[in-house]
């Protein structure tokens, strides 16, 4: 078995628990001048390995805040976030960065590709700060690009690709490091319905292969692709949808 990465060694390699994500009494309050905005109120839920959870809710329901907290990017005001048994917000900021690199893959809304890097360079981005050799990086990136049907487009810049292709590059970047959790924010938000559906099919396939996915979406059609849906309203989990 290959050596465990720094962060994973602490938990994943030590023991195996069923719940990959545990959220306990999560509260997030934003202070805006005199006004206190409670974005999340006593949120509790767990996500098991291999689940594909979609989070839905109207604007301002707190779903994006929840996603950033799950992504290790936004410190909660109260409560605990355990991922693979690691209380991630008790890690130092640098360790938290390492955690994100090793555990999480992000698919951002509107792709968020680096415009001056080619397709393959964008995919290799998370590997650029690892010890992996250039050869190894290229091999890993090629592997994932092949799966995403992007072979032959490695040297193109993002603006030379269609929206669907850019989305697949973003997914490739999120998955190149084989992270246990894939977080997606409105992955179909900038795509036409046909391409959006293709992307959701891809997510479904990935999930069937064992990839844990947490996705924020507005689109009720996307719900059908997930195994469970969390409905959020006014900062609370209104309905913890049943598994499909």
């Amino acid at each position, binding site marked *: 078995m290959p050596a465990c990465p720094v962060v994973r060694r602490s938990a994943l390699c030590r023991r195996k628990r069923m719940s990959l994500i545990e959220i306990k009494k999560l509260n997030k309050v934003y202070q805006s001048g005199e006004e206190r905005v409670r974005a999340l109120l006593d949120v509790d839920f767990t996500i098991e390995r291999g689940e594909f959870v979609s989070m839905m809710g109207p604007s301002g329901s707190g779903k994006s805040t929840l996603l950033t907290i799950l992504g290790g*990017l*936004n410190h909660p005001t109260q409560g605990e976030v355990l991922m693979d048994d690691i209380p991630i917000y008790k890690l130092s*900021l*640098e360790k938290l960065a390492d955690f*994100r690199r090793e555990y999480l893959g992000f698919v*951002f809304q509107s792709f968020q590709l680096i415009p*001056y890097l080619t397709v393959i360079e964008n995919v290799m*981005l998370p590997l650029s700060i690892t010890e992996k050799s250039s050869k190894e990086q290229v091999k890993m990136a090629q592997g994932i690009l092949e799966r995403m049907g992007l072979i032959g487009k490695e040297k193109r810049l993002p603006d030379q690709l269609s929206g669907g292709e850019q989305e697949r590059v973003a997914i490739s970047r999120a998955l190149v490091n084989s992270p246990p959790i894939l977080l997606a924010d409105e992955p179909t938000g900038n795509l036409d319905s046909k391409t959006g559906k293709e992307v959701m099919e891809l997510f479904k396939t990935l999930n069937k292969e064992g990839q844990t996915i947490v996705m924020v979406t507005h689109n009720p059609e996307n719900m059908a692709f997930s195994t469970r849906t969390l409905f959020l309203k006014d900062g609370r989990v209104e309905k913890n949808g049943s598994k499909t």
Partner: protein
Amino acid sequence: MRLKDISINNLKRRKGKVFFLILGLTIGITTVVALISITRMMNEDIANKLDEFGANILILPRSDDLSLSYGGMSVGGVSVDAQTLMDSDVPKISRIEVSENIATISPKLIGTVETEGKKISLMGVRFEEELRLKRWWKIHGSEPRSRDEVLLGNEAAVRLFKSAGETLSINGKKVKVSGILEETGSQDDFLIFGDLAFVQETMKKPGGLSLIEVSAYCNTCPIEEIIIQISKQLPHAKVTAIKQTIETKMEALGHFKKFSVGISMIVLLIGSLIVFTNMMASVNERKREIGIFRAIGFRKSHIVRIIFLEALIVGLIAGIFGYILGLGISQIIGPMMTGMKGGKIMIDPLLAIGAIFLSSLIGILSSAYPAIHASKMDPTTALRSL
């Protein structure tokens, strides 16, 4: 892919802005290199001009005999031991190893003569050398052209009631007063200046000298070295540096150096500000990108490294261009300011390395705050769409 690839690709993408960033820093480095080079040229030029302006080395016979004061220096052995220094010693001075540093050699013989019923000091000089050495002399009349012509110091002319064009009898020999020196405020005012050979003959000291004044370029070679070498050639003579003259010259050069350092500092400060504002703007423009980097697991140190690397690349390029341009400009402006002939380009590896190092250092120092600012950005603010 490594972090450097991100830096390089980003610089390639922002060609226009990077061009102005490099240009700003290049102007700074160009100015510094040009100023340093021009200062060096001017230093050399000023030093040479100052060196030509009056003697800085005095050669006297080794003698404890009769002392005679000239120009504030004690001139020994005039009457008793006048043979210690001879005409034949003059060419020996030109034979020293650092002879290229010798500007003028002016041998002299001093004595007292009887003229028009008055005792007066007579100095034998080689007018060509003496006039080159004493550029401050203003002559009413003309310079002596033959050995029968003399120059009178201002006071001497008053005492002898003589003016230019009149004749004078020195130890019974008739000479023509070709000109009168304007008052100098020095001992020169009291002297009669005659041709060296004529004075040696008049005073019956063929080939004899009382002292030799030397003006040396001590800008590139320490004066001590010149003195040691002359002393070796003339073991029977006492060779001394006229310290006061040297110190005054060094002080003048010091002021000039301080001035150019001041200008360089101001220009560099402006260059640093250009890099700083440009880097700050670049960081603010790249908030989203930095947010992505942070979100996918880049540490703060990785962000700092990307920005420092960009600054270093900009600094290196600006350093190289700055050095080349600075050198070129100094070759054009330098000769105009100094009157020296340009043409030969002096490549100083130390200045080249210094310019590139300074440029890189400014690039990195000016980017330190923007880099730290970028690394501290909240990834969620940076990624507004999340």
